[in-house]
């Protein structure tokens, strides 16, 4: 067991390191000429050289990767126009266009994405599991068929189109926008309601299908029949005995989904105008801001790998049937 967890951690770290090196190579070693872009159309050779030096672009590639890694672990110094600035430990360089540390930009953006994804999760988990449980109990009836049909259609509906239509036409929902939760929780919630509902209802379809299938399986198990024959009330059989067993596979899917949504919230963010991780990446793409692009890709990878790791480890505890050699 311990060996398995160790193995998973080592493989997770290897993935993160390779991702970092590969994306660094892609962004900084490809003939992208970031200094030329920053310098703009009216560029002089001395200014170009100065910019290249301040970005460490004049160093050999291996040294560039080395100092980037060093910056991530212990921090590094940047010298620009005779002024030296220290960049603290998880240092990912400075945004080319905003002049701010990338770490700071990411710290601002991450809570926005997290709020969207977690709020949406509350909606789709509650709607999906409830609808799935009800449909599973009435398996084969018209209600069940309608539910399954609806989930099929909602599930195949293009998400960005759905979000766009909600943003344009559902004007009765409160104005969207991001406000810090710590400043004003009420404003925070009202600014995110539209995004939560869209993300939640679109994903509720998939969770209805998962929990319906899982619930049908668990209601057919012996322990449910035993509970019934003991005279346990119907409601208790379904929600205490059946649902509890049915939730394990759903929880696993949820863990993996959550990580993907953290990096895929970009449509929700850009359509509802919420300044999250995806919006940061989009802006960096438009302005050719390589350090910010690299930073957000890195944070996204780490989040994804970490969540997968957590799910795998949690699964070995949640499901006693999983035995690892």
């Amino acid at each position, binding site marked *: 067991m311990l060996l398995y967890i160790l193995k998973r951690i080592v*493989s997770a770290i290897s993935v993160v390191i390779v991702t970092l090196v590969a994306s660094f190579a892609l962004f900084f070693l490809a003939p992208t000429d970031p200094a030329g872009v920053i310098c703009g159309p009216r560029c002089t050779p001395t200014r170009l050289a100065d910019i290249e030096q301040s970005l460490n672009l004049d160093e050999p590639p291996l040294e560039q990767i080395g100092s980037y890694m060093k910056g991530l672990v212990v921090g590094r110094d940047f010298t620009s126009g005779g002024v030296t600035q220290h960049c603290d430990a998880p240092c990912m360089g400075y945004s080319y266009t905003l002049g701010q540390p990338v770490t700071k930009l990411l710290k601002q953006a991450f809570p926005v994405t997290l709020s969207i994804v977690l709020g949406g999760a509350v909606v789709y988990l509650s709607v999906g599991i409830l609808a799935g449980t009800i449909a599973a109990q009435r398996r*084969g009836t018209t209600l069940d068929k309608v539910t399954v049909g609806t989930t099929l*259609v909602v599930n*195949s509906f293009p998400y960005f189109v759905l979000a766009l239509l909600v943003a344009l036409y559902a004007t009765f929902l409160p104005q969207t926008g991001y406000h810090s939760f710590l400043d004003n929780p009420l404003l925070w919630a009202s600014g995110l309601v539209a995004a939560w509902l869209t993300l939640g209802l679109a994903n509720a379809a998939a969770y209805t299908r998962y929990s319906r*299938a*899982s619930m049908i399986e668990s209601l057919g198990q012996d322990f449910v029949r035993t509970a019934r024959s003991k005279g346990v009330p119907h409601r208790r059989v379904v929600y205490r005995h059946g649902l509890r067993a049915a939730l394990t596979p759903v929880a696993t899917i949820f863990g993996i989904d959550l990580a993907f949504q953290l990096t895929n919230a970009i449509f929700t963010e850009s359509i509802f105008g919420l300044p999250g991780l*995806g919006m940061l990446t989009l802006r960096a*793409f438009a302005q050719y801001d390589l350090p910010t692009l690299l930073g957000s890709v890195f944070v996204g990878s780490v989040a*994804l790998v970490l969540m997968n790791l957590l799910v795998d480890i949690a699964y070995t505890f949640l499901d006693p049937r999983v035995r690892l050699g």
Partner: protein
Amino acid sequence: MEPMIEDSGVAESAESRTETTERTPAGRQNARTRSKSPTAIALERLRRDKVAMVCATIFGLFILIAIFAPLLTTLEGQDPTTYHQDLLDDYGFPTIAPNGEHWLGIEPRLGRDLFARFVYGARPSLIVAGSVTALTTVIGVVVGLVAGFAGGWVDRVLSWCIDFVLSLPYLLFAIAVPAVLLSIFVGSAEGAPPDDVARARFFSLIIVLSFFGWANLARLIRGEVLSLREREFVAAAKVLGVPTHRVLFKELLPNLVAPIVISVSLALPQYIVTEAGLTFLGVGLTEPTPSWGVTIASAQNYYRADPLYLWLPVGAITVLVLSLSLLGDSVRDAFDPRTRR
């Protein structure tokens, strides 16, 4: 567990219940005269599925629109790139309603013909999604076959690659990588002619989507091969001295038709959505390519003044993706051996 087993019942149960009486004797007769391959059986089930047939027809219609786009626009007498500035008022709004000359009216601001933009817009969606699906399927099948059959360090390396690709934040990369590819293809992004940029965007989109798409299928195929290679017919082929590539492609591949067909039919609509979505965000295809994603992005500002402008591409993409997804679900039900009753 995927809930596919239950879903199959909805569309089929009504027909199959009425048909069982006639089908059983006919099926017995067939079995005596000639045997059917699993693929033939699956196609027969698919043909009986009304939802699947309707969806396939809609998909066929879109393909016809894409193929005959030049013909359709010639019929109308317009093309997708001419600016009809004379038909716009001072604020950029069209002064004409849809009429015989412009069947669906013209765009606000630029004045291009909407019908022509619509029919030509079917092309990039289908070409991008089609080629990405083809590429990812070929790569996924080959990698999966090799990894599963070779075993040992080959399998370990390929499996690591699969896990690696699957654990990348794919949408973030899909945004970041074209920025780099673009500068490789056309040099400085600032001065390049828009046609070159549009073409570079087109190819970088296909490359990026293909790079991230193959891993899922490869994992699936690898798993199947791991169990198939222990079967007697593979051992027999090996003993007879059949060369490895023939074992892979003549012995193993025919047994993998079902997972491959299922994966293709589910991937196609997914890539259409991804292409349109990325284009909508401004990181996919660009002007002057006529694309539904581009049109949706610019039309969202006119959703009140000119609803048709927005709803045309929105409706097209929704209908296309919905029908393809439902078709994919039916294909899965028809080909998946677990749903056979």
